[in-house]
């Protein structure tokens, strides 16, 4: 076993030092009836690297990658280019194989990058403070809802019909367990417009998304105003972090809490995870935040250093009174995010956002040129919904047959909601003009 350094002689010697007769001596506390005799049945024995790599490679080969051809799937996860440097950095032994930085004297590498991450997220969202990340955007959204209830001492949250339905579902799960009422507004391309009216005196927060799941960008300032008037909070959600290089960020719209998915910066698609949840808020709410926080301080010699801080909010100190049970962050994904963001800088981010937007504009132009296509999203960044005559599932399947992965059928996200003829398609900097042409050409064929 290549991963096990003990030799048979080591084991014998160590048992002798301990004074134990055999390894079985250590398992005598196990109820006899539950002790396993031999090996667990039904599982193979150990294998060498080559065999394992071949097994896993065979599985991998059964999947079609997003880089293989024209690819337009979005809805909360986006195909972006990740610089090679980012992957090199997160594979550094010292980042990859270390623990949560509870011993700051020998964890400044992790801690300083977390501090920089927090600063970047705060800047990106135009919020005052940010935490060191959550599992992903959807769980960050759920945590925001619960936090809003804690802050306002109210028990009702309102979810936009433009909120990614997985985010809404994850939020419902958490809220319902805690007796929080969840008001889910009806799905709609421009659903955020209905949010302001849905706030009442019991509302802890309204949760709106921009760009929303249909790609619509919306200035949520009126929602924030309406919420604040009722002493409720606005939680502003995004699933495409690149959009913030160009579109109005939560902080400029008056959001109290901003949450979002950070995958687009530095992280590959990974079939949905691990991703990195971004969580930011106003400074006055800081001590109510869930998750890990890194703060600046000094060491015994007076040198600047960083530590995890405000841990009295957390489960390992507060136990049943913690703000959340979360006790990890998205470590390496966070590092990938911050490293990629450092490479981009404001200039690169803005540039990247513009390329994404242009790709989507060109895609929209091309698809609008296809007879029968109706563009639905009124204002968008890099993703939009459109209607086709016929069933979206059928159309996408036929497109797939022509080598084009054309997007997400809205009914996969909203079954039984009358959206069977709607496709949501995204374009990014990875989308070439040839890809766009291929899509339009294929769609012409399919709809013919």
């Amino acid at each position: 076993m290549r991963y096990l350094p003990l030799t048979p002689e080591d084991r014998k010697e160590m048992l002798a030092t301990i004074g134990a007769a055999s390894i079985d001596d250590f398992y005598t506390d196990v109820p006899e009836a539950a002790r396993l005799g031999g090996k667990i049945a039904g599982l193979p024995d150990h294998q060498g690297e080559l065999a394992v790599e071949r097994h896993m490679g065979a599985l991998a080969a059964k999947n079609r990658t997003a880089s293989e051809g024209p690819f337009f799937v979005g809805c909360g996860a986006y195909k972006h280019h990740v610089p090679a440097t980012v992957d090199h950095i997160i594979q550094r032994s010292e980042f990859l194989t270390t623990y949560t930085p509870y011993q700051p004297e020998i964890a400044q590498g992790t801690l300083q990058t977390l501090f920089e991450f927090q600063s970047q997220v705060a800047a990106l969202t135009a919020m005052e403070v940010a935490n060191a990340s959550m599992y992903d955007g959807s769980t960050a959204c759920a945590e925001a809802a619960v936090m809003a209830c804690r802050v306002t001492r109210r028990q009702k949250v309102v979810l936009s019909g433009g909120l990614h339905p997985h985010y809404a579902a994850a939020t419902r799960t958490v809220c319902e367990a805690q007796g929080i009422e969840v008001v889910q507004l009806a799905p709609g391309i421009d659903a955020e417009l209905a949010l302001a009216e849905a706030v009442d005196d019991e509302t802890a927060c309204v949760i709106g998304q921009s760009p929303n799941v249909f790609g619509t960008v919306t200035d949520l300032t009126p929602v924030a105003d309406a919420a604040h008037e009722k002493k409720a909070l606005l939680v502003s959600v995004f699933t495409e972090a690149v959009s913030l290089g160009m579109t109005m960020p939560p902080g400029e719209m008056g959001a109290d809490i901003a949450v979002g998915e950070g995958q687009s910066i530095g992280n590959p698609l990974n079939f949905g995870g691990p991703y990195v949840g971004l969580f930011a808020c106003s400074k006055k709410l800081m001590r109510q935040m869930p998750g890990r926080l890194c703060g600046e301080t000094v060491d015994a010699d007076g040198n600047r250093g960083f530590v995890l801080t405000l841990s009295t909010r957390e489960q390992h100190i507060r136990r049943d009174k913690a703000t959340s049970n979360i006790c990890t962050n998205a470590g390496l994904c966070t590092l990938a995010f911050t490293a990629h963001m450092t490479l981009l800088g404001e200039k690169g981010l803005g540039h990247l956002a513009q390329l994404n937007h242009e790709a989507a504009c060109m895609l929209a132009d091309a698809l609008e040129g296809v007879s029968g296509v109706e563009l639905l999203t009124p204002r968008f960044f890099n993703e939009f919904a459109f209607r086709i005559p016929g069933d979206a599932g059928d159309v996408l399947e036929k497109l797939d047959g022509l080598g084009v992965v054309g997007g997400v059928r809205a009914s996969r996200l909203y079954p039984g909601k009358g959206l069977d003829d709607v496709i949501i398609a995204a374009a990014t900097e990875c989308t070439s003009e040839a890809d766009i042409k291929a899509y339009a050409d294929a769609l012409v064929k399919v709809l013919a």
Partner: protein
Amino acid sequence: QREDLIFETGSTTKTGVDLPTPKGGMDRLGGVTRKKSVGLPGLSEPEAVRHYVRLSQQNYAIDLGLFPLGSCTMKHNPRLNEKVARMPGFADIHPLQPQSTVQGALELIDQLATWLKTLTGMPAVAMSPKAGAHGEFCGMMAIRGALMARGEIETRTRVLVPASAHGTNPATAVQCGFTVDEIKADARGRVDMEDLKSKLVDSSDIAGIMLTNPNTCGLFETDIREIADLIHEAGGYFYCDGANFNAIVGRVRPGDLGVDAMHINLHKTFSTPHGGGGPGAGPTVLSEALADFAPVPFVVEEDGVYHLVEQRSGEGSDAFGRLCAFHGQMGMFTRALTYMLSHGADGLKQAAEDAVLNANYLQSRLKKVMTPAFDGYCMHEALFSDAFTAEGIETLDIAKAMIDEGYHPMTMYFPLVVHGAMLIEPTETESKAELDRFCESLLSIAEKAKAGDESLKGAPYLAPKRRLDETQAARKPELRWSEPDKIAAE
């Protein structure tokens, strides 16, 4: 070793990427544009690489030496796992692309599920929890779902949690709408059965118990079967915190102990990298009684075709809903399955045994000076109290002194049931030579602690930083970089 912040060295006009020139003239944003500058510094690629490489060298890591954090299981992270996780067929696929184009990914999830179910002896597993604590939440939500189905959710609200439990256990219970009733540990470091029984005299409000096994004292709960029976008789469910599953893989199946739900930390037992704090993954195995209450999504196979069930349709659905977007921590699944195939059934068992052997070896050598918290053999980690230290020297000082010896400190002050606890977990991936070196270092510190050597109070002396002022950090939190004059003005 000061490394400037990117905000101090970078600039908003600098970038470390080259992108094609935009065409210009396209705008479909409808005016919802960013008004103010973002304030994000950029660095050229060479500067960025150096920044992170230099910073990385301020970290301690498994790849540099023994990392004896009890309860954290800092074992070797094989690079093969990293390589496999980066195969484009896994890394470059989208969670919402057509299922016909991701059959290999779904098959992988199914294979991993089979391993997890087989190793635990449990009939079902929810794959989507994103970390251990998320798995706890998943398991407790399944219990909640079962109680709802029984119409008892209003009445059964009390969850028993031992005093020695991880903080996540009570936090999770409360988040699922339960109240926590703490049970004591006995003198042997296990659940105090008398106290437990007294809590069950009136059992009509019992939802269940959350128990770690092997427990956080590094001990196997000898009465676990009886505990399970008592809880089940009381009408409750048995949630087992699987953080320490690594000690018993191949020797015991939680399913044979009466467990109803247990999360598995893939980063502990199955070596996915800790990464400075994540990402984790916490698949949660479920008993027959809870299997129907698993969240969406899940994978089912039919005639060699894999289906991802994303919605439980119909009125009769028992699923408690959805834990998160998409389907779980795929990147961690690839690593964990790679690890399992590499070890096989034989290697996984050997790994558990070696972990336990290593811990007992350390315990037997260290107890010459240090005070074991409890008598007898331990499982995969050895627990000591601070009873042996001289007045004025505390666990923290010993921990910080270890840094100067070239080691990461052990887990300190946990579990709470032991005074000045030091919890040491070497894992199976340490050689005897490394353990011997470690013992010699720690024993020399322990001798100093016993003798009251004041120099320990100043440790570490040789680390990238001296002891950091955590009080200041908490008193006036600086959570982000600000312009220097902005700070001054505040």
